[in-house]
Protein backbone atom coordinates (compact mmCIF):
# COMPACT_ATOMS: atom_id res chain seq x y z
CA UNK A 1 0.00 0.00 0.00
CA UNK A 2 0.97 3.66 -0.05
CA UNK A 3 3.71 4.70 2.34
CA UNK A 4 3.46 7.85 4.49
CA UNK A 5 5.63 9.79 2.07
CA UNK A 6 3.25 9.18 -0.80
CA UNK A 7 0.30 10.13 1.36
CA UNK A 8 1.92 13.46 2.16
CA UNK A 9 2.49 14.01 -1.51
CA UNK A 10 -1.21 13.43 -2.14
CA UNK A 11 -2.18 15.84 0.63
CA UNK A 12 0.17 18.42 -0.81
CA UNK A 13 -1.40 17.91 -4.21
CA UNK A 14 -4.81 18.62 -2.72
CA UNK A 15 -3.60 21.70 -0.86
CA UNK A 16 -1.59 23.40 -3.57
CA UNK A 17 -2.87 22.02 -6.82
CA UNK A 18 -6.61 22.69 -6.76
CA UNK A 19 -9.44 20.52 -8.04
CA UNK A 20 -7.73 19.04 -11.08
CA UNK A 21 -4.81 17.58 -9.17
CA UNK A 22 -7.14 16.37 -6.40
CA UNK A 23 -8.73 14.10 -8.96
CA UNK A 24 -5.38 13.02 -10.34
CA UNK A 25 -3.60 12.26 -7.08
CA UNK A 26 -6.44 11.13 -4.84
CA UNK A 27 -8.31 8.84 -7.22
CA UNK A 28 -6.28 5.62 -6.85
CA UNK A 29 -6.38 5.45 -3.00
CA UNK A 30 -10.13 6.16 -3.00
CA UNK A 31 -10.75 3.43 -5.56
CA UNK A 32 -8.76 0.97 -3.48
CA UNK A 33 -10.56 1.95 -0.28
CA UNK A 34 -13.92 1.32 -1.93
CA UNK A 35 -12.75 -2.02 -3.23
CA UNK A 36 -11.57 -3.00 0.25
CA UNK A 37 -14.85 -1.90 1.83
CA UNK A 38 -16.90 -3.94 -0.64
CA UNK A 39 -14.96 -7.07 0.31
CA UNK A 40 -17.28 -7.41 3.32
CA UNK A 41 -16.14 -10.12 5.72
CA UNK A 42 -12.96 -10.78 3.72
CA UNK A 43 -10.57 -8.11 4.94
CA UNK A 44 -7.82 -6.94 2.57
CA UNK A 45 -4.73 -9.12 2.59
CA UNK A 46 -1.28 -7.61 2.17
CA UNK A 47 1.74 -9.32 0.64
CA UNK A 48 5.30 -8.27 -0.08
CA UNK A 49 6.63 -8.58 -3.62
CA UNK A 50 9.83 -7.56 -5.35
CA UNK A 51 9.64 -6.66 -9.02
CA UNK A 52 12.53 -5.68 -11.26
CA UNK A 53 11.13 -2.88 -13.38
CA UNK A 54 13.24 -1.53 -16.23
CA UNK A 55 16.33 -2.98 -14.62
CA UNK A 56 15.78 -1.72 -11.08
CA UNK A 57 14.35 -3.79 -8.19
CA UNK A 58 11.38 -2.43 -6.23
CA UNK A 59 9.93 -4.03 -3.11
CA UNK A 60 6.27 -3.29 -2.44
CA UNK A 61 3.69 -4.17 0.19
CA UNK A 62 0.52 -4.72 -1.83
CA UNK A 63 -3.06 -5.84 -1.46
CA UNK A 64 -3.05 -9.34 -3.03
CA UNK A 65 -5.72 -8.09 -5.45
CA UNK A 66 -3.35 -5.56 -7.02
CA UNK A 67 -2.73 -6.30 -10.66
CA UNK A 68 0.70 -5.89 -12.18
CA UNK A 69 -0.78 -2.93 -14.07
CA UNK A 70 -1.91 -1.15 -10.89
CA UNK A 71 1.38 -1.93 -9.16
CA UNK A 72 3.26 -0.27 -12.04
CA UNK A 73 0.98 2.74 -12.37
CA UNK A 74 -0.30 3.49 -8.88
CA UNK A 75 2.52 2.22 -6.66
CA UNK A 76 5.62 2.75 -8.80
CA UNK A 77 4.36 5.68 -10.89
CA UNK A 78 5.32 4.04 -14.19
CA UNK A 79 2.27 5.69 -15.75
CA UNK A 80 3.40 5.10 -19.32
CA UNK A 81 1.56 1.78 -19.24
CA UNK A 82 -2.14 2.52 -19.71
CA UNK A 83 -5.35 1.05 -18.32
CA UNK A 84 -7.90 0.67 -21.09
CA UNK A 85 -10.52 -2.04 -20.59
CA UNK A 86 -8.86 -3.71 -17.56
CA UNK A 87 -10.11 -7.07 -18.92
CA UNK A 88 -7.44 -8.15 -21.39
CA UNK A 89 -9.42 -7.09 -24.42
CA UNK A 90 -7.68 -3.90 -25.57
CA UNK A 91 -3.92 -4.38 -25.06
CA UNK A 92 -3.26 -0.83 -23.71
CA UNK A 93 -1.62 -2.40 -20.62
CA UNK A 94 0.84 -4.56 -22.58
CA UNK A 95 4.26 -4.86 -20.93
CA UNK A 96 7.14 -7.27 -21.46
CA UNK A 97 7.78 -9.70 -18.58
CA UNK A 98 10.89 -11.88 -18.77
CA UNK A 99 11.00 -11.19 -22.52
CA UNK A 100 7.34 -11.94 -23.27
CA UNK A 101 4.48 -9.52 -23.82
CA UNK A 102 1.49 -9.92 -21.54
CA UNK A 103 -1.62 -8.01 -20.49
CA UNK A 104 -0.53 -6.55 -17.15
CA UNK A 105 -4.19 -6.04 -16.18
CA UNK A 106 -4.82 -9.80 -16.10
CA UNK A 107 -1.91 -10.71 -13.87
CA UNK A 108 -1.52 -10.33 -10.12
CA UNK A 109 1.56 -8.44 -8.97
CA UNK A 110 2.21 -11.02 -6.23
CA UNK A 111 2.59 -13.68 -8.92
CA UNK A 112 5.57 -11.80 -10.38
CA UNK A 113 8.03 -12.13 -7.49
CA UNK A 114 11.52 -11.63 -8.94
CA UNK A 115 10.29 -11.13 -12.51
CA UNK A 116 11.86 -8.58 -14.88
CA UNK A 117 9.28 -6.16 -16.24
CA UNK A 118 9.95 -3.81 -19.15
CA UNK A 119 7.53 -0.93 -19.63
CA UNK A 120 7.53 1.78 -22.26
CA UNK A 121 9.74 3.83 -19.90
CA UNK A 122 12.35 1.05 -20.10
CA UNK A 123 12.41 0.81 -23.89
CA UNK A 124 13.57 4.35 -24.60
CA UNK A 125 13.67 7.89 -23.31
CA UNK A 126 12.60 11.23 -24.78
CA UNK A 127 16.27 11.89 -25.62
CA UNK A 128 17.01 8.42 -26.92
CA UNK A 129 13.97 6.81 -28.46
CA UNK A 130 13.77 3.07 -29.03
CA UNK A 131 13.77 2.42 -32.81
CA UNK A 132 10.11 1.33 -32.54
CA UNK A 133 9.18 4.58 -30.80
CA UNK A 134 11.01 6.59 -33.46
CA UNK A 135 9.21 4.66 -36.21
CA UNK A 136 5.80 5.32 -34.61
CA UNK A 137 6.63 9.06 -34.54
CA UNK A 138 7.87 9.03 -38.13
CA UNK A 139 4.85 7.14 -39.48
CA UNK A 140 2.28 8.90 -37.29
CA UNK A 141 1.27 5.58 -35.74
CA UNK A 142 -1.27 7.15 -33.37
CA UNK A 143 -3.70 9.99 -32.90
CA UNK A 144 -4.63 10.34 -29.22
CA UNK A 145 -1.69 8.18 -28.12
CA UNK A 146 -3.45 6.32 -25.33
CA UNK A 147 -2.94 2.84 -26.80
CA UNK A 148 0.56 3.69 -28.05
CA UNK A 149 2.73 2.42 -25.15
CA UNK A 150 0.93 -0.92 -25.35
CA UNK A 151 1.19 -0.96 -29.15
CA UNK A 152 4.95 -0.30 -28.98
CA UNK A 153 5.66 -2.89 -26.25
CA UNK A 154 3.60 -5.39 -28.21
CA UNK A 155 5.31 -4.52 -31.52
CA UNK A 156 8.81 -4.99 -30.08
CA UNK A 157 7.79 -8.43 -28.79
CA UNK A 158 6.02 -9.34 -32.05
CA UNK A 159 9.23 -8.98 -34.04
CA UNK A 160 11.04 -11.21 -31.53
CA UNK A 161 8.23 -13.79 -31.79
CA UNK A 162 8.44 -13.90 -35.59
CA UNK A 163 12.25 -14.23 -35.43
CA UNK A 164 11.85 -17.05 -32.88
CA UNK A 165 9.69 -18.91 -35.41
CA UNK A 166 6.49 -18.87 -33.35
CA UNK A 167 3.60 -19.54 -35.78
CA UNK A 168 0.49 -17.37 -36.07
CA UNK A 169 -3.03 -17.81 -37.45
CA UNK A 170 -1.90 -16.54 -40.88
CA UNK A 171 1.27 -18.65 -41.10
CA UNK A 172 0.74 -20.88 -44.16
CA UNK A 173 2.79 -23.85 -43.00
CA UNK A 174 2.93 -24.00 -39.20
CA UNK A 175 5.90 -26.36 -39.38
CA UNK A 176 7.88 -23.78 -41.39
CA UNK A 177 9.35 -20.40 -40.56
CA UNK A 178 6.85 -17.52 -40.40
CA UNK A 179 7.48 -14.62 -42.80
CA UNK A 180 8.34 -11.12 -41.62
CA UNK A 181 5.36 -9.72 -43.51
CA UNK A 182 2.70 -7.06 -43.02
CA UNK A 183 0.09 -9.83 -42.91
CA UNK A 184 1.89 -11.55 -40.03
CA UNK A 185 2.34 -8.25 -38.18
CA UNK A 186 -1.36 -7.37 -38.54
CA UNK A 187 -2.51 -10.73 -37.19
CA UNK A 188 -0.05 -10.70 -34.29
CA UNK A 189 -1.04 -7.15 -33.31
CA UNK A 190 -4.76 -8.01 -33.10
CA UNK A 191 -4.66 -7.90 -29.30
CA UNK A 192 -3.90 -4.16 -29.40
CA UNK A 193 -6.93 -2.08 -30.19
CA UNK A 194 -6.58 1.50 -31.47
CA UNK A 195 -9.81 3.45 -31.11
CA UNK A 196 -8.46 6.21 -33.37
CA UNK A 197 -7.90 3.65 -36.11
CA UNK A 198 -4.22 4.38 -36.76
CA UNK A 199 -3.71 0.77 -37.80
CA UNK A 200 -2.26 1.31 -41.27
CA UNK A 201 0.39 3.68 -39.94
CA UNK A 202 1.14 1.32 -37.04
CA UNK A 203 1.78 -1.52 -39.50
CA UNK A 204 4.03 0.78 -41.57
CA UNK A 205 6.03 1.73 -38.48
CA UNK A 206 6.51 -1.88 -37.35
CA UNK A 207 7.32 -3.01 -40.90
CA UNK A 208 10.06 -0.40 -41.18
CA UNK A 209 11.72 -1.58 -37.97
CA UNK A 210 11.34 -5.19 -39.07
CA UNK A 211 13.03 -4.50 -42.42
CA UNK A 212 15.83 -2.50 -40.81
CA UNK A 213 16.69 -5.20 -38.28
CA UNK A 214 16.46 -7.94 -40.88
CA UNK A 215 19.15 -6.24 -43.00
Amino acid at each position, binding site marked *: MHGPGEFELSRRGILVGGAASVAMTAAPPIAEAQEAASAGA*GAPVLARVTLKVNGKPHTLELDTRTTLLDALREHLQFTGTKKGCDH*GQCGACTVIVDGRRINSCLS*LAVMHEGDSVTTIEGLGTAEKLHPMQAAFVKHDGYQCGYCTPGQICSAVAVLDEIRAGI*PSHVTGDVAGKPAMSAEEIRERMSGNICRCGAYSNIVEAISEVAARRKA
Partner: protein
Amino acid sequence: MKAFTYERAGSPAEAAAIVGRTQGARFIAGGTNLLDLMKLQIETPTHLVDVNHLGLDRIEATPEGGLRIGALVRNTDLAADKRVRKDYALLSRALVAGASGQLRNKATTAGNLLQRTRCPYFYDTNQPCNKRKPGSGCAAIGGINRSMAVIGASDACIATHPSDMAIAMRALDAVVETVRADGATRAIPIAEFHTLPGDTPNVENTLAAGELITAVTLPKPIGGTHIYHKVRDRASYAFALVSVGAILQKDGSGRVAFGGVAHKPWRVEAAEAALAQGAKAATALAFAGAKPTEQNKFKLVLAERTLAAAIAEARA
Protein backbone atom coordinates in the same frame (compact mmCIF):
# COMPACT_ATOMS: atom_id res chain seq x y z
CA MET B 1 -12.66 -8.07 -6.63
CA LYS B 2 -13.20 -9.84 -3.30
CA ALA B 3 -10.21 -10.04 -0.97
CA PHE B 4 -8.28 -13.31 -0.94
CA THR B 5 -5.24 -14.90 0.62
CA TYR B 6 -2.51 -16.22 -1.67
CA GLU B 7 0.11 -18.92 -1.50
CA ARG B 8 2.51 -20.77 -3.75
CA ALA B 9 2.16 -24.52 -3.49
CA GLY B 10 5.30 -26.66 -3.14
CA SER B 11 4.13 -29.56 -5.30
CA PRO B 12 1.11 -30.58 -7.41
CA ALA B 13 -0.10 -32.98 -4.70
CA GLU B 14 0.21 -30.28 -2.04
CA ALA B 15 -1.71 -27.82 -4.23
CA ALA B 16 -4.51 -30.36 -4.69
CA ALA B 17 -4.62 -31.11 -0.96
CA ILE B 18 -4.83 -27.41 -0.04
CA VAL B 19 -7.61 -26.64 -2.52
CA GLY B 20 -9.42 -29.85 -1.55
CA ARG B 21 -9.56 -28.96 2.14
CA THR B 22 -9.93 -25.15 1.94
CA GLN B 23 -13.40 -23.72 1.44
CA GLY B 24 -13.38 -21.13 -1.36
CA ALA B 25 -9.89 -22.01 -2.60
CA ARG B 26 -8.99 -22.05 -6.29
CA PHE B 27 -5.88 -22.82 -8.31
CA ILE B 28 -4.41 -19.95 -10.32
CA ALA B 29 -2.16 -20.57 -13.33
CA GLY B 30 -2.11 -18.03 -16.19
CA GLY B 31 -4.99 -16.21 -14.55
CA THR B 32 -6.23 -14.66 -17.79
CA ASN B 33 -9.75 -16.07 -17.41
CA LEU B 34 -9.98 -16.33 -13.61
CA LEU B 35 -8.88 -12.73 -12.91
CA ASP B 36 -11.25 -11.39 -15.56
CA LEU B 37 -14.11 -13.21 -13.79
CA MET B 38 -12.89 -12.18 -10.32
CA LYS B 39 -12.97 -8.51 -11.32
CA LEU B 40 -16.63 -8.98 -12.22
CA GLN B 41 -17.25 -10.99 -9.01
CA ILE B 42 -18.48 -13.92 -11.09
CA GLU B 43 -15.67 -15.89 -9.44
CA THR B 44 -15.10 -15.01 -5.78
CA PRO B 45 -12.34 -17.24 -4.40
CA THR B 46 -11.16 -16.49 -0.85
CA HIS B 47 -7.83 -18.27 -1.29
CA LEU B 48 -5.63 -18.65 -4.36
CA VAL B 49 -3.08 -21.42 -4.76
CA ASP B 50 -0.47 -20.47 -7.35
CA VAL B 51 0.58 -23.54 -9.38
CA ASN B 52 3.05 -21.71 -11.65
CA HIS B 53 6.29 -22.95 -10.12
CA LEU B 54 5.74 -26.70 -9.85
CA GLY B 55 7.73 -27.88 -12.85
CA LEU B 56 4.59 -28.63 -14.87
CA ASP B 57 5.82 -26.58 -17.84
CA ARG B 58 7.60 -29.21 -19.92
CA ILE B 59 6.66 -31.09 -23.10
CA GLU B 60 8.13 -34.61 -23.16
CA ALA B 61 7.99 -37.59 -25.51
CA THR B 62 6.06 -40.56 -24.11
CA PRO B 63 7.24 -44.20 -24.37
CA GLU B 64 4.19 -44.81 -26.62
CA GLY B 65 5.47 -42.32 -29.21
CA GLY B 66 3.20 -39.47 -28.18
CA LEU B 67 3.69 -36.28 -26.20
CA ARG B 68 3.10 -35.43 -22.57
CA ILE B 69 2.26 -31.73 -22.27
CA GLY B 70 2.66 -30.23 -18.81
CA ALA B 71 -0.46 -28.51 -17.51
CA LEU B 72 1.41 -25.21 -17.21
CA VAL B 73 2.84 -25.16 -20.75
CA ARG B 74 1.81 -21.80 -22.16
CA ASN B 75 -0.36 -21.71 -25.26
CA THR B 76 2.43 -19.92 -27.18
CA ASP B 77 5.01 -22.55 -26.25
CA LEU B 78 2.69 -25.42 -27.13
CA ALA B 79 1.79 -23.90 -30.51
CA ALA B 80 5.50 -23.28 -31.24
CA ASP B 81 6.84 -26.68 -30.17
CA LYS B 82 8.54 -28.29 -33.18
CA ARG B 83 7.01 -31.72 -32.51
CA VAL B 84 3.53 -30.25 -32.21
CA ARG B 85 3.92 -28.19 -35.39
CA LYS B 86 5.11 -31.23 -37.31
CA ASP B 87 2.98 -34.10 -35.96
CA TYR B 88 -0.03 -32.39 -34.35
CA ALA B 89 -0.43 -29.33 -36.59
CA LEU B 90 -4.16 -29.23 -35.77
CA LEU B 91 -3.23 -28.35 -32.20
CA SER B 92 -0.85 -25.55 -33.26
CA ARG B 93 -3.44 -24.15 -35.64
CA ALA B 94 -6.23 -24.24 -33.08
CA LEU B 95 -4.05 -22.53 -30.47
CA VAL B 96 -3.00 -19.66 -32.70
CA ALA B 97 -6.63 -19.19 -33.82
CA GLY B 98 -7.53 -18.32 -30.22
CA ALA B 99 -7.12 -15.17 -28.12
CA SER B 100 -4.25 -12.70 -28.70
CA GLY B 101 -0.47 -13.02 -28.57
CA GLN B 102 -0.40 -11.46 -25.09
CA LEU B 103 -3.02 -13.86 -23.74
CA ARG B 104 -1.39 -16.92 -25.33
CA ASN B 105 1.87 -15.99 -23.57
CA LYS B 106 0.14 -16.39 -20.19
CA ALA B 107 -2.68 -18.87 -20.80
CA THR B 108 -1.87 -22.49 -19.97
CA THR B 109 -2.80 -25.87 -21.41
CA ALA B 110 -4.92 -26.88 -18.41
CA GLY B 111 -6.41 -23.42 -17.99
CA ASN B 112 -7.48 -23.42 -21.62
CA LEU B 113 -9.43 -26.66 -21.06
CA LEU B 114 -11.07 -25.10 -18.00
CA GLN B 115 -12.13 -21.82 -19.63
CA ARG B 116 -15.58 -20.63 -18.69
CA THR B 117 -18.16 -19.77 -21.32
CA ARG B 118 -18.29 -16.31 -22.88
CA CYS B 119 -22.12 -16.33 -22.85
CA PRO B 120 -22.96 -12.63 -22.34
CA TYR B 121 -25.62 -13.52 -19.75
CA PHE B 122 -23.08 -15.50 -17.72
CA TYR B 123 -20.99 -12.31 -17.65
CA ASP B 124 -23.94 -10.02 -16.81
CA THR B 125 -24.51 -10.34 -13.06
CA ASN B 126 -27.83 -8.49 -13.40
CA GLN B 127 -29.28 -11.38 -15.37
CA PRO B 128 -30.34 -14.88 -14.33
CA CYS B 129 -27.86 -17.61 -15.23
CA ASN B 130 -27.99 -21.21 -14.02
CA LYS B 131 -24.28 -21.58 -14.62
CA ARG B 132 -23.33 -18.56 -12.52
CA LYS B 133 -26.14 -18.89 -9.98
CA PRO B 134 -27.77 -22.35 -10.04
CA GLY B 135 -31.55 -22.21 -10.04
CA SER B 136 -31.79 -18.56 -11.15
CA GLY B 137 -32.86 -19.36 -14.72
CA CYS B 138 -31.37 -18.78 -18.18
CA ALA B 139 -31.61 -15.37 -19.79
CA ALA B 140 -29.99 -16.63 -22.99
CA ILE B 141 -32.85 -18.96 -23.96
CA GLY B 142 -35.28 -16.10 -24.53
CA GLY B 143 -32.57 -13.52 -25.18
CA ILE B 144 -29.96 -12.76 -27.79
CA ASN B 145 -28.71 -16.26 -28.49
CA ARG B 146 -27.04 -16.04 -31.88
CA SER B 147 -23.73 -17.28 -30.43
CA MET B 148 -25.18 -20.10 -28.32
CA ALA B 149 -25.20 -23.89 -28.56
CA VAL B 150 -27.21 -25.69 -31.24
CA ILE B 151 -26.82 -29.19 -29.84
CA GLY B 152 -26.47 -30.91 -26.47
CA ALA B 153 -28.01 -27.94 -24.65
CA SER B 154 -30.72 -28.17 -21.98
CA ASP B 155 -33.63 -26.14 -20.65
CA ALA B 156 -31.20 -24.87 -18.01
CA CYS B 157 -28.33 -23.66 -20.23
CA ILE B 158 -27.48 -23.11 -23.90
CA ALA B 159 -23.93 -21.81 -23.41
CA THR B 160 -20.99 -22.98 -25.52
CA HIS B 161 -17.45 -23.95 -24.54
CA PRO B 162 -15.17 -21.20 -25.87
CA SER B 163 -11.89 -23.08 -26.36
CA ASP B 164 -10.24 -23.64 -29.73
CA MET B 165 -7.48 -25.77 -28.23
CA ALA B 166 -9.98 -28.20 -26.72
CA ILE B 167 -11.46 -28.90 -30.18
CA ALA B 168 -8.04 -30.04 -31.37
CA MET B 169 -7.45 -32.06 -28.19
CA ARG B 170 -10.78 -33.82 -28.72
CA ALA B 171 -9.96 -34.72 -32.34
CA LEU B 172 -6.50 -35.90 -31.25
CA ASP B 173 -7.88 -38.19 -28.49
CA ALA B 174 -5.94 -36.41 -25.76
CA VAL B 175 -5.94 -37.71 -22.19
CA VAL B 176 -6.08 -35.43 -19.14
CA GLU B 177 -3.82 -36.48 -16.24
CA THR B 178 -4.68 -35.29 -12.75
CA VAL B 179 -3.77 -35.53 -9.09
CA ARG B 180 -6.57 -35.53 -6.55
CA ALA B 181 -6.76 -33.96 -3.10
CA ASP B 182 -5.93 -37.34 -1.52
CA GLY B 183 -2.83 -37.65 -3.71
CA ALA B 184 -4.27 -40.29 -6.06
CA THR B 185 -3.68 -39.79 -9.77
CA ARG B 186 -5.88 -40.68 -12.72
CA ALA B 187 -6.12 -40.26 -16.49
CA ILE B 188 -9.36 -38.96 -18.04
CA PRO B 189 -9.93 -39.38 -21.80
CA ILE B 190 -10.85 -35.95 -23.23
CA ALA B 191 -14.18 -37.37 -24.43
CA GLU B 192 -15.11 -37.92 -20.78
CA PHE B 193 -13.66 -34.67 -19.47
CA HIS B 194 -16.14 -31.94 -20.48
CA THR B 195 -19.81 -32.40 -19.65
CA LEU B 196 -23.14 -31.32 -21.16
CA PRO B 197 -25.15 -28.79 -19.12
CA GLY B 198 -28.18 -30.91 -18.20
CA ASP B 199 -29.70 -29.69 -14.93
CA THR B 200 -26.30 -28.63 -13.52
CA PRO B 201 -24.66 -26.23 -16.00
CA ASN B 202 -22.45 -24.97 -13.17
CA VAL B 203 -20.62 -28.30 -13.51
CA GLU B 204 -18.48 -28.21 -16.66
CA ASN B 205 -16.15 -31.17 -16.31
CA THR B 206 -15.59 -34.38 -14.38
CA LEU B 207 -12.87 -33.06 -12.05
CA ALA B 208 -13.47 -33.57 -8.33
CA ALA B 209 -13.05 -30.79 -5.77
CA GLY B 210 -9.36 -30.00 -5.42
CA GLU B 211 -8.36 -32.19 -8.38
CA LEU B 212 -5.48 -30.59 -10.29
CA ILE B 213 -4.64 -31.21 -13.94
CA THR B 214 -0.94 -32.09 -14.17
CA ALA B 215 -0.60 -32.89 -17.88
CA VAL B 216 -2.38 -33.58 -21.13
CA THR B 217 -1.03 -36.47 -23.17
CA LEU B 218 -1.34 -37.05 -26.88
CA PRO B 219 -1.21 -40.53 -28.43
CA LYS B 220 1.31 -41.17 -31.19
CA PRO B 221 0.75 -39.13 -34.36
CA ILE B 222 -1.77 -40.41 -36.92
CA GLY B 223 -0.57 -38.43 -39.96
CA GLY B 224 -3.13 -36.97 -42.34
CA THR B 225 -3.88 -33.39 -43.25
CA HIS B 226 -4.53 -31.21 -40.21
CA ILE B 227 -6.98 -28.35 -40.66
CA TYR B 228 -8.53 -25.91 -38.21
CA HIS B 229 -11.10 -23.57 -39.74
CA LYS B 230 -12.54 -20.95 -37.44
CA VAL B 231 -15.44 -18.78 -38.57
CA ARG B 232 -15.99 -15.64 -36.51
CA ASP B 233 -17.28 -12.08 -36.71
CA ARG B 234 -13.75 -10.60 -36.93
CA ALA B 235 -10.72 -11.90 -38.81
CA SER B 236 -8.74 -12.21 -35.58
CA TYR B 237 -9.14 -12.11 -31.80
CA ALA B 238 -12.76 -13.27 -31.56
CA PHE B 239 -14.49 -16.41 -30.35
CA ALA B 240 -15.77 -18.90 -32.90
CA LEU B 241 -19.29 -18.88 -34.26
CA VAL B 242 -18.38 -22.29 -35.66
CA SER B 243 -15.02 -23.99 -35.91
CA VAL B 244 -13.97 -27.25 -37.48
CA GLY B 245 -10.93 -29.23 -36.39
CA ALA B 246 -10.26 -32.01 -38.86
CA ILE B 247 -7.64 -34.64 -39.53
CA LEU B 248 -8.28 -36.04 -42.99
CA GLN B 249 -6.53 -39.00 -44.56
CA LYS B 250 -5.85 -39.59 -48.26
CA ASP B 251 -8.41 -42.43 -48.42
CA GLY B 252 -11.20 -40.03 -47.41
CA SER B 253 -11.45 -41.22 -43.82
CA GLY B 254 -10.77 -38.88 -40.93
CA ARG B 255 -11.75 -37.27 -37.68
CA VAL B 256 -13.66 -34.06 -37.08
CA ALA B 257 -14.61 -32.06 -34.01
CA PHE B 258 -16.71 -28.89 -34.00
CA GLY B 259 -16.37 -25.79 -31.82
CA GLY B 260 -18.81 -23.00 -31.01
CA VAL B 261 -21.80 -25.33 -31.21
CA ALA B 262 -22.08 -27.04 -27.81
CA HIS B 263 -21.22 -26.99 -24.11
CA LYS B 264 -18.20 -29.13 -24.94
CA PRO B 265 -16.07 -29.92 -27.99
CA TRP B 266 -18.52 -31.64 -30.30
CA ARG B 267 -17.28 -34.85 -31.87
CA VAL B 268 -19.48 -37.74 -32.97
CA GLU B 269 -17.24 -40.67 -33.90
CA ALA B 270 -20.11 -42.44 -35.73
CA ALA B 271 -20.46 -39.44 -38.05
CA GLU B 272 -16.82 -39.71 -39.12
CA ALA B 273 -17.59 -42.89 -41.06
CA ALA B 274 -19.58 -40.64 -43.44
CA LEU B 275 -16.68 -38.23 -44.08
CA ALA B 276 -15.78 -40.00 -47.31
CA GLN B 277 -19.29 -39.23 -48.58
CA GLY B 278 -18.76 -35.53 -47.97
CA ALA B 279 -19.60 -32.75 -45.57
CA LYS B 280 -23.37 -32.97 -45.93
CA ALA B 281 -23.54 -36.60 -44.87
CA ALA B 282 -21.06 -36.17 -42.02
CA THR B 283 -22.65 -33.05 -40.54
CA ALA B 284 -26.16 -34.56 -40.84
CA LEU B 285 -25.00 -37.36 -38.55
CA ALA B 286 -22.89 -35.17 -36.26
CA PHE B 287 -25.78 -32.75 -35.70
CA ALA B 288 -28.65 -35.27 -35.57
CA GLY B 289 -31.04 -34.06 -32.85
CA ALA B 290 -29.78 -30.47 -32.97
CA LYS B 291 -32.15 -27.90 -31.47
CA PRO B 292 -31.02 -24.50 -32.72
CA THR B 293 -32.83 -21.27 -31.93
CA GLU B 294 -34.25 -19.00 -34.64
CA GLN B 295 -31.15 -16.81 -34.20
CA ASN B 296 -28.48 -19.49 -34.37
CA LYS B 297 -29.84 -22.03 -36.84
CA PHE B 298 -27.36 -20.56 -39.34
CA LYS B 299 -24.66 -22.46 -37.40
CA LEU B 300 -25.86 -25.79 -38.81
CA VAL B 301 -25.45 -24.54 -42.38
CA LEU B 302 -22.16 -22.89 -41.43
CA ALA B 303 -20.82 -26.11 -39.86
CA GLU B 304 -21.53 -28.07 -43.04
CA ARG B 305 -19.94 -25.43 -45.28
CA THR B 306 -16.92 -25.07 -43.02
CA LEU B 307 -16.39 -28.83 -43.04
CA ALA B 308 -16.85 -28.83 -46.85
CA ALA B 309 -14.09 -26.21 -47.09
CA ALA B 310 -11.82 -28.34 -44.91
CA ILE B 311 -12.44 -31.44 -47.04
CA ALA B 312 -11.81 -29.46 -50.24
CA GLU B 313 -8.57 -28.10 -48.77
CA ALA B 314 -7.39 -31.59 -47.81
CA ARG B 315 -8.08 -32.89 -51.33
CA ALA B 316 -6.40 -29.96 -53.07
